[in-house]
């Protein structure tokens, strides 16, 4: 790859979101896979890939450098560090002949931000209608939902930290809403 090939994620985090009650960061390049496996093959495929595929919708499994979320009855969304997991797609591809499954590379479809701070739920609730109390949305929960008009994937990383992903072209809108909210309060 030549040096002038620039990696561009459609959005930059404005300064106003980088400090204060909630600190927002743009997540760098990741390997992202959409993995679909028939129920009978779930455990075998997980074993072959060396990961865990949680059985229940909304559950995640996180270990060093990789997060696996169960988004649907036979659907897993995998986000891994590029250096460590760039080969996971090919590995899964090879399993396709043996198991009833599918894997699709969506590494560049999404843009992710991480939000951390005591008022993080308020920023998420600017556009997301879900109850974010720890009882209703515990640490580790991950789901598709919406941020006003943007479909998103929301993942609670800790009590005061969320990861939020959307399709690339929705990222300026998603970050724009957060910015408008914080600006209106800071003036």
């Amino acid at each position, binding site marked *: 790859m030549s040096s002038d090939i620039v990696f*561009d994620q459609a959005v930059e985090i404005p300064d106003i979101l980088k400090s204060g009650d909630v600190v927002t960061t743009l997540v760098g390049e990741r390997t992202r896979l959409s993995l679909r496996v028939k129920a009978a093959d779930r455990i075998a495929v997980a074993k072959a890939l060396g990961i865990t595929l949680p059985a229940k919708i909304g559950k995640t499994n996180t270990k060093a450098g990789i997060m696996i979320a169960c988004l649907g009855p036979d659907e897993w969304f995998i986000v891994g560090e590029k250096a460590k997991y760039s080969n996971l797609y090919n590995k899964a591809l090879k399993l396709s002949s043996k198991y009833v499954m599918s*894997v699709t590379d969506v590494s560049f479809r999404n843009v992710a931000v991480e939000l951390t701070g005591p008022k993080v739920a308020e920023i998420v609730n600017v556009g997301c209608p879900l109850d974010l109390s720890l009882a209703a949305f515990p640490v580790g929960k991950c789901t598709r939902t919406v941020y006003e008009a943007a479909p998103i994937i929301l993942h609670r990383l800790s009590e005061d930290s969320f990861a939020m992903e959307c*399709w690339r072209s929705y990222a300026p809108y998603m970050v724009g809403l957060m910015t408008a909210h914080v600006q209106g309060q800071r003036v």
Partner: protein
Amino acid sequence: MGDFRKTGKGVIDTQQPVSFTFDGKSYSGFKGDTLASALLANGVHLMGRSFKYHRPRGPVGAGFEEPNALVTVTRGKGRMTPNLRATAIEIYEGMMASSQNRWPGLGFDIGAFNNTFSAFFPAGFYNKTFMWPKSFWDKVYEPFIRNMAGLGPAPTEVDPDVYGAVYGHCDILIIGSGPAGLAAALAAAKKDQRVILVDENVNMGGSLIGAGHVSIDEKSASDWVAKALKDLNKADNVVLMTRTSAIGYYHDNFVALAERLTDYIPEAQIGKTREKLHRIRAGKVILAQGAIERPLVFNGNDKPGVMLTSAAQTFLNKYGVAVGKEVAVFTAHDSAYSAAFELADSNVRIAAIIDAREGVSAELISAAEGRGIDVHIGSVISKTGGKKRVRSVEVYEPVHNTQKTIACDALLMSGGWTPSLHLWSQSKGSIKWDEAKGVYLPDLANENCVCIGSCNGDFGIKAALDAGSKAGGGRKVYKTDEPVFGSGQVFDHLPNYIKPSKTKAFVDFQNDVTDKDIKLAVREGFKSIEHVKRYTTNGMATDQGKLSNLNALEIAAKALGKQAPQVGLTTFRPPYTPTTFGTFCGYRTDDLFEVTRKTAIDPWAEAQGAVFEPVGIWRRAWYFPKAGEDMHAAVARECKATRDSLGIFDASTLGKIEVVGPDAAKFMNIMYTNPWSKLGVGACRYGLMLGENGYIYDDGVVGRIAEDRFHVTTTTGGAPRVYRHMEDYLQTEFPELDVWLTSTTEQWSVIALNGPNARKLIEPFVEGIDLSPEAFPHMNVREGKICGVPTRLFRVSFSGELGFEINVPSHYGRAVWETLFAAGEQFDITPYGTETMHVLRAEKGFIIIGQDTDGTVTPQDAGMSWIVSKKKKDFVGKRSLQRSDLVAEGRKQLIGLLTDDPKTVLEEGAHIVADPDQSIPMDMLGHVTSSYWSESLGKSIAMALVKDGFNRMGDDLYIPMEGGVTHKAKVVKPVFYDPKGERLNVV
């Protein structure tokens, strides 16, 4: 004028004077005053003019229910808010308020001639008068109505303020912070649950504010409120929200709260959120909204200075303002007595209490007499004196037929109490009529919701406190010392010796509806209360009949000879109180109004000066004008450059769906009209998708990446519905198929290169793919690398030229584009937009879904029978294609048109006829779907859907245009350029 302030009362801070202007005149009030209380403290009652008759009006209420005292507040360019209730807005230093609905001034108003001639403006006047002739509507009636109607002027400038919106959740939402709401919050706070307590006022406490004569649990009411608020503030599970109106109650305890954040701040900065919409989902809702006092309907009841007894009490207790120096009280309810006594005890002279009832308790009468107040039992007010302020009342005693005039400068009225059921009714809770109290009360709940306190008919402070505690999950029983609330009598008619034609007794103050209007509506045949409402406009003003609905109901019921519950109540609708548009918009204005999806290459196009067009919610580069070029010139240049050498086009918005799994081909066979099983790996095929109704739904090129993997493309606008359509069939009709769908639209940036030099450009950048025509023929796809990043390289063409569509990871899309563009200089590479793309495809006769088809076009209609498999037993739409209607003669079919004058470019959408000389309405054969100037052919080309089009090849048809011009065009096959497709094979 004079000072009406009573020191030592209320929530105002007398250490902080605040100056403001009303209609340009300066006044002074105190921090904590509303505009109304500050004006009343200055002796000003006249605050507005009524809507229809422009009658002088002052405040009737003291809060959000106020119908009369509507004002406009201005705080700089674009920051003008009309129709604010003077009784509900806080004054701030430098506030500029003005009255409305008057011209040229509040004291002298030309529109008041309506009042003089009010006999000509009865109920339904507008409906009856402005009917005929029709031509008068535009020129006479409408301008007249527009001038006369309307309240404050609508702002004409852009509102520079920002508004916000958030979602919130709680276990218990309590609306209203009077005794019931506070007691509920105190009880709920003790449990492990999230509580939100909201109140539309600045201060919590409701009727307890300044209620110095009341004690609760051995404390004064104000000390009790202070302690309650202190405890609630300490509880970290409780959120207190003031200046927040609950405006709407929706399904499953979803409640909209409008919070006002800056309107009371003298220097409310632009940029700071002015108002915020809280969309709250509550486990349980407790409505403690209280009750609103009912006015009495009598002749002259709308003069400034005539107001609700409870309003006078609020002005006194909350703001330390006496509404007059010599106050008469007209009542039909016991509760007015204690209010009168409070005024008297604050050294306001009570001129008289006039009680319409015959039976009044001896204790009340002796308590009045003990204060030296005359009580006139069984008496009414037959008229009021004074013009811009009430100066006297005439007391009429029907039994003795006597009249007596009593001087006063304010008149308080009390017709009993109406529980506030607005939100309860919005929640679809049912209501029942309580005969004893003469009011509607909550009946069966539709949501997890309770009404407590006086909005549930539990009048009195102790009743409210105890009900609150219970609703909040507690069991506390409060001890209070308060005046007996008492009871009242509902009058559907107050006697008068004056002929009805000489009286004017208002029911709806804001809309100027009188008792006579309602009776007239009934006489004219309106039997449903909903019709009476619309005919008279009673309850249709900005206060939504908070004061008038029950009185109107009583009068209508009496006129109909029915009981009130048989007539029923009009529907309550959100918003509960007028709300700014800004609050409803929240953050969704300007750039955030709608999502605008942009490709990775979009910033490059913007920098190049591209003109954009919206396609679905994407914005796409439309054309790239050079200096001095208009659209026509730019598109002509872009087309020529592409056909001559090389054009580059951003096709990233094309929808992409990855169809993967052992049954992928089987699934494709179901979803598309053509067969997929035999398509080789590495090959592409154009696919046509139908709806089950047999009409063309979408199309796109599909590449087979592996035996079990298809890279499907869809139209830009069609991507979401195609994905949904596929998921629907897969999940609900063919769940046995082992195949999965993933949207990959945004995984890839797509760079389309078209033109004879396309291959030459990419050759040096491509790794791992043999680009030679033999190894990589047209309609094939290969995986490899370009500019060092992975690519799915399609050899396809939507222009008829040698073409490639380079799919690269979208985060690298712009970088690859810029690299290729720089290298393309040697070929005069030309960026083109969607318009040139459309011209190039039209020259080849390729259709655009939604432009050349409209949801009623079959593949046969589009001349595409070749793509419909005869062998496949099933695909979506197959059976419908056999329907008799879809195979009948006379369907509209897609053909080409060449105009007689090659320079004439037809208008898209123009109608087509066979005979231009026929009389109007002509027999229309169809319409032009696509039409362009073709620079390559040096003439205009068009496509059209025309009845029996295939049988009209070579015929002349006509396109009559507005203004008498008629174009002539010949029907041809819709392939205008390189019909043999030789240009695809340029080496």
